[in-house]
């Protein structure tokens, strides 16, 4: 088998550090994503590769300029791709696991950027669920009978994302090696 698909990865591992850990685990097992796009949050294709110690970094950035990629590349990182505004970088290593976010304020800022993304999607899903319940109860629309299933699915997406948003906003990132 040279290729496999992982489903709903970004939802199962909804914080940057959890997604990084999962990608790194796949690398040690000999699997890596070659390219990413918006659909990769739902369906991520992994290619067979030589098992390796690889550091992955997930960087939520809505807008970047040309210097963004240059800065990472100069520092030895390789761009994997972007899935729904999450930029993914990789870097094989030996010894100490390399870091792209080396101080507490920048790690905190990354969590806040991520919380915005999960917060917006989660709120839209919950609003969608609520709207579907209201329309269903009021018997508005042609498929009024389907509302419990549709509202349930939207809530299934919205509730975990809302929970992740709250957790990210309340989290104090670990100090690790920073001396701030």
């Amino acid at each position: 088998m040279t290729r496999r698909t992982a489903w709903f990865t970004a939802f199962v591992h909804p914080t940057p550090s959890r997604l990084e850990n999962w990608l790194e685990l796949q690398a040690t097992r000999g699997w890596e994503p070659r390219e990413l796009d918006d659909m990769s949050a739902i369906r991520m294709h992994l290619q067979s590769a030589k098992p390796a110690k690889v550091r992955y970094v997930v960087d939520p950035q809505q807008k970047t300029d040309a210097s963004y990629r240059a800065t990472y590349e100069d520092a030895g990182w390789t761009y994997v791709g972007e899935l729904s505004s999450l930029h993914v970088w990789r870097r094989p290593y030996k010894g100490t696991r390399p870091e792209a976010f080396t101080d507490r304020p920048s790690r905190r800022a990354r969590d806040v950027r991520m919380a915005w993304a999960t917060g917006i999607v989660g709120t839209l899903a919950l609003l969608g669920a609520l709207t579907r319940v209201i329309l269903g109860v009021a018997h508005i629309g042609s498929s009024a009978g389907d509302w419990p299933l549709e509202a349930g699915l939207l809530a299934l997406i919205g509730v975990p994302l809302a929970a992740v948003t709250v957790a990210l906003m309340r989290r104090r990132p670990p100090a690790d090696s920073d001396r701030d």
Partner: protein
Amino acid sequence: MTDLKEELSATMYCILLSLREERHGYGIIQHVADFTAGYVQIGAGTIYTSLKKLERAGWIDRTRTEERRHYYVLTERGTRALAEQTRRVERLYAYGRGIA
């Protein structure tokens, strides 16, 4: 222009020190590792977001862009902030001298 209200981290302070001369992101990473003998290591994600923050605060200015790299230098406002922070560090050092 947004002001930086929080106390400067060691990383931010070193970035400001480094930008007394014009440098780009990775140039700052290397320069800081050099003059702190590796004590302060700055990652690519940290330098990118820190430079954006300092630029928004008006503490640094973008001088030019070459081969996708933005070059920055301290502004007058940034120079004043650096001097103020240095005085603060000196005072703390004076209080702590003799303990370590």
